């Protein structure tokens, strides 16, 4: 049985359809990468999977619980088995990095403070921030913040780890380090990992399967090899980095020539 099952999911914002009847199964222990361009609906799908928004119709089952219809109490319980690292890291600026990681342990367990301190140190060590626990998020670099967010997401050893654009805005070396960290976590802790990204090298490095979104619908779902071999024009366009139809050089040049001759205005 799938650990996450999305069925006929429809999401609309002010009458504008953002996700259009999505179906997706994510198996226990696999790394699923949600790929797609800006505005394709990746982050919206992610927000549905973690229960931050309710859909117009359809369902999202996480560990057998339909989180689109369940009670708040059941949703909270289900969320304890999901760790989320947001695109902006979303570390609490008023707390140090170690307090960010300790928060879940303090709130949801009755462990002694010394045990919590030890666990926090271990989580920070996994992401390479053991020496930076005392710092506040605003004192960290972009890559360190993202790793801090991963450490916080790992606090309760969740079964499902969700990462929203983990390598966005990072230099290639730090992005590659994060990829290796994701692979390490998956192999060492047997987690189900869902990653939203539009970074192709990262996606193909970490994914077991890839789901490609385009305008709120899946264009392709398959293994890395299946996606690589896809003949779908939109998938090919994305993989081969082919731009959409844009203004070609000659009309633009003609426009500026006219403008310089005083025959054309910006209006």
């Amino acid at each position: 049985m799938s650990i996450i099952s999305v069925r006929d999911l429809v999401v609309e914002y002010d009458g504008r359809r953002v996700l259009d009847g999505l179906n997706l199964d994510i198996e226990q222990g696999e790394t699923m990468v949600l790929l797609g361009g800006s505005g394709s609906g990746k982050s919206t799908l992610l927000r549905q999977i973690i229960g931050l928004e309710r859909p117009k119709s359809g369902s999202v089952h996480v560990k057998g619980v339909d989180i689109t219809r369940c009670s708040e109490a059941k949703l909270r319980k289900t969320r304890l088995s999901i760790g989320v690292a947001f695109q902006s890291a979303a570390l609490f600026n008023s707390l140090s990095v170690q307090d960010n990681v300790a928060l879940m342990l303090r709130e949801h367990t009755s462990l002694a403070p010394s045990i919590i301190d030890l666990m926090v140190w271990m989580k920070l060590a996994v992401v390479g921030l053991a020496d930076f626990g005392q710092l506040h998020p605003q004192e960290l670099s972009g890559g360190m913040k993202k790793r801090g967010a991963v450490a916080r997401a790992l606090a309760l050893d969740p079964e499902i780890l969700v990462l929203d654009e983990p390598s966005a805005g990072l230099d290639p070396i730090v992005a590659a380090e994060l990829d290796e960290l994701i692979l390490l976590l998956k192999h060492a802790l047997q987690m189900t990992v869902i990653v939203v990204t539009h970074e192709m090298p990262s996606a193909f490095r970490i994914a077991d399967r890839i789901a490609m979104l385009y305008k709120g619908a899946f264009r392709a779902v398959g293994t890395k090899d299946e996606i690589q071999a896809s003949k779908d024009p939109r998938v090919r366009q994305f993989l081969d980095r082919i731009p959409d139809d844009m203004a070609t050089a000659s009309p633009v040049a003609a426009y500026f020539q006219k403008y310089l001759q005083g025959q054309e205005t910006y209006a």
Partner: protein
Amino acid sequence: METVLESVGKKTLTQLDYVGSLNIQLWATLRAMVSALPFVGNRYRWQATVRQMLQIGVDAFPMVSLMAICTGFILAMQGASELRRFGALHYVIDLVAVGFTRELGPLLTAIAVSGRSGSAFAAEIGTMKVTEELDALRVMALEPIEFVLAPKYLAALITVPCLSILSNFCGILAGGLFMFFSTHLTPLLYLRYVLTSIELQDVITGLIKSVVFATIIAHVGCLEGFRVRGGPDAVGRSTTSAVVRSTFLVIVADAVFTAIFYFMGRH
């Protein structure tokens, strides 16, 4: 084109939606507030409440004192210039003592706290919204109402009445200084006149108003923060709106309560 009737209807619905949201938030906070209480609640929430009490109360101490002293002098001098003509200078004591305990103490405090803390609540929560920290709380199975709002509300409920008492004291002290320098009335005699002019019910009605003002300031500030949509500019707008709306509602509530107490025969 929008007719006048449509425009009035839309604005009315917007205001009703705002009042409805305030009510929903108030009841949700009252339900969550047990967690912020000492001994019976969560100790981390109580620690957050104490931090908020320091920020709302102790840090506002100099500002509220100075405002009350200045207003006490103004009230005494304005009152004296008129009452002297009727040979009723001693009524300045009643004017200052009763005016502050029933009205000016709580109102001045509310305006000061609204400007300092109401805006700070909106800015803090608005920033948390923009940086996805509120979403992070939800996915960590922590409710923002309980985690963020309940400590602020409890702290405001405790500190605003305390600041009002301080304001009363400072205002009456300023009246005493004026009487000492203008009529050489001894402080002990002034105190005796003050105690005969104010009644316990004056103090109680002032404290009831303070509790209502604290509720308005905390909830309007936090609601403005929760309603932030967009980026940092929206946070700026929410802080302005928090101060304007809470000051307006405080004055409206003051008028309503003064009328109620008046017709109940208290005044």
